[in-house]
């Protein structure tokens, strides 16, 4: 994979993620007890042997910088190649809000131009999976195609994947077109928004779009041009969780409680790497009772926990009953709190005796650093 440059594009639609993405992009959302969403695609690339990776951010830059830093946890802190983060620039003389990511790619095209690699792997971050790109890359090279799209055959009874890209094949199984899933079929081929592109083809598409002015997003520009190029597709067979709605985010976390999914997501093609936090082991005290839960390090637990994901450094006091919930890092849950279908964002504090109950389709969300106290109490 040395001949392939990785590009992670964070221009994702956050509007359906509610309070969870108020101050962070979806890519930085905490998930699965100790990770951020972006850790999966970053680790996949690194584990597949890609050593040069560009990350193109949206406007919420600070949490991205904090998490990625110099790229050291992913072994991307290098003199040659390594991690490059591109943030939008602002021209204050002619201030206007730029729509789409195309301009950011165009502004920074020298990054791609001067890279030694001849192929590019573009990926969004929101499709959670553990994927070995070598296989897909090899198939792409052998196909002689200009572009390759990675997809997953999904069964979607509950219309969870509305709005995802849908791929159509002709009767011979050859790629025909790509559109948006409106839920017409239960079974369909969902694009994972991971594209391999020849570098030369990328520049043709980018320059064409800028000159014609007919696209704001890189994806749009690619779709506009698919009929001109030879398009290959590659089916991924592992588990995929698109993190594009609160419900899908909740279900992805709960899915990890199934041991086959956990193994697939965390081990199938290499470990998922993330920023180290130096937490001690989790301490279960005398009154702890924990069932079917995924618990990160640094917690002190003295209550009842069931079907839940507990992030790092969480404190759960005695008398608590936590069920079907996601508790993010450093949250503090005091005595006799009852939670069911709740998402507590980072450092939330729930005072003694509070009861919070959400619904599986729409969990209760406590925002970052929120303090929740029983009315009338301090």
């Amino acid at each position, binding site marked *: 994979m040395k001949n392939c440059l990785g590009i992670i594009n964070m221009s994702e639609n956050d509007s359906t993620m509610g309070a969870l993405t108020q101050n962070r992009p979806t890519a930085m959302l905490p998930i*699965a*007890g*100790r990770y951020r969403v972006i850790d999966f695609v970053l680790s996949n690339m690194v584990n597949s042997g890609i050593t040069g990776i560009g990350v193109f951010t949206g406007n919420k830059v600070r949490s991205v910088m904090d998490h990625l830093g110099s790229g*050291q946890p992913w072994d991307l802190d290098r003199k040659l190649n390594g991690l490059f983060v591109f943030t939008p620039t602002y021209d204050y003389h002619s201030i206007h809000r730029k729509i789409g990511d195309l301009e950011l790619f165009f502004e920074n095209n020298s990054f791609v131009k001067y890279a030694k690699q001849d192929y590019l792997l573009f990926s969004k971050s929101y499709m959670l999976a553990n994927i070995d790109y070598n296989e897909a890359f090899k198939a792409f090279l052998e196909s002689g195609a200009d572009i390759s799209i990675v997809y997953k055959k999904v069964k979607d009874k509950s219309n969870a994947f509305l709005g995802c890209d849908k791929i159509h094949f002709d009767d011979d199984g050859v790629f025909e077109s790509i559109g948006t899933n409106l839920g017409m079929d239960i079974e369909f081929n969902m694009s994972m928004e991971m594209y391999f592109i020849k570098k030369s083809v990328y520049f043709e598409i980018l320059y064409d779009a800028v000159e014609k002015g007919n696209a704001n997003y890189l994806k749009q520009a690619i779709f506009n041009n698919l009929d001109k190029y030879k398009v290959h597709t590659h089916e991924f067979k592992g588990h995929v969780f698109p993190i594009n709605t609160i419900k899908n985010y909740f279900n992805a976390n709960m899915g990890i*409680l199934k*041991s086959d999914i*956990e193994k697939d997501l*965390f081990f199938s093609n290499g*470990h*998922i*790497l*993330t920023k*180290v936090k*130096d937490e*001690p*082991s*989790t*301490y*279960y*005290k*005398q009154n*702890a*009772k*924990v*069932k*079917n*839960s*995924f*618990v*990160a*390090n*640094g917690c*002190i637990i003295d209550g009842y926990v069931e079907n839940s*994901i*507990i992030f790092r450094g969480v404190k759960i006091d005695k008398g608590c009953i936590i069920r079907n919930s996601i508790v993010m890092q450093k949250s503090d849950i005091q005595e006799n709190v009852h939670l069911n279908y709740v998402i507590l964002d980072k450092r939330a504090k729930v005072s003694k005796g509070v009861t919070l109950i959400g619904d599986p389709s729409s969990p209760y969300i406590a925002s970052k650093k929120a303090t929740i106290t029983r009315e009338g109490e301090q």
Partner: protein
Amino acid sequence: MKEGKMIAMLLAGGQGSRLKLLTKDVAKPAVPFGGKYRIIDFPLSNCSNSNIFDVGILTQYKPYQLNSHIGIGSSWDLDRPNGGVRVLPPYTNEQGGRWYKGTANAIYENLSFIDELDPEFVLILSGDHIYKMDYSVMLDFHLEKNADVTVSVIEVPWEETNRFGILKIDADQLITEFLEKPKNATSNLASMGIYIFNWKSLRDYLIADEKNPDSENDFGKNIIPNMTVDGKKMYAYKFQGYWKDVGTIKSYWEANMDLLSDENTLDLYDRTWKIYSKNKHLPPHYISADAHVKNSMINEGCVINGTLENAMLFNEIHIEKNAVVKNSVILSGVVVEEGASVYNAVIMENVVVESGTKIGSPDSEEVYLVSSTNIIKS
């Protein structure tokens, strides 16, 4: 320019033969402890937290795992471009190879290393003890007393004084007498093997000591007594807090069990004094619906289906259904199969406790050390 610089020299050559199989492949400082640490993590983290970023580690016995654990020191923030952590094994010169003859000789052989760092003070540490200590406070004491040497001491039970180097001090904490393992001690202040020396003065003593063919080249036996004879100002710095020398299997087991006790004073969860260790990039642990977990510590990557009580679990351990682990320390990679039971034991890395096996008994006080080939009673 910078304030009087102190560097640390950490003696990590000890074989620790009373720890038996635990030190078969590793030096004592590399022995695992507390669910995710190795013993040497404690003095190294203390250095980092005390703002000491120049640390020489003197190795001799089986340094391989220690080297691999320490790496470039990044876990403890000791991967500094200049200074930082440096492993110092014995080396050869024109006269051939020389092994370190004693603690003082080990420092002597690295005179040029220390001279290049050009410190005002040298802190001598041992890699064998578990404790949290701010060495900068000890240095403040050293400066305040205008001492030539400061020795850190701790009160030990009177009945154990014959196991330690015992010091007598006056009202000003000046050391008046030094007794190595006295039979009838008149003080219960034991040396912790932690010294602060003024480098210029120590340098002279090391050179003189090396010239003396009768010397054992040891700090406790030679350097300190020689300084006493010369009337150097030696002060005792009283340390209060948890301090343990895990010299035997039993005390090793006890020290781990201490962490599960309500009276435990070694707070691993204190965010202002974190203990750092090498990170393994593992997912959180999973506790299934069949598990019973009580008063235990569990690290990342474990899967728990059985019963744990007073158990200290390292990483990637599988406890299968109906397996029982009580009052035990389980090192990384162990599998306790269905129906097996483990009481009062230390199970070494990667051991498979087969289905139906019974190790120890709830009624016995004996502690067992279990490797894949051996069970040793202690």
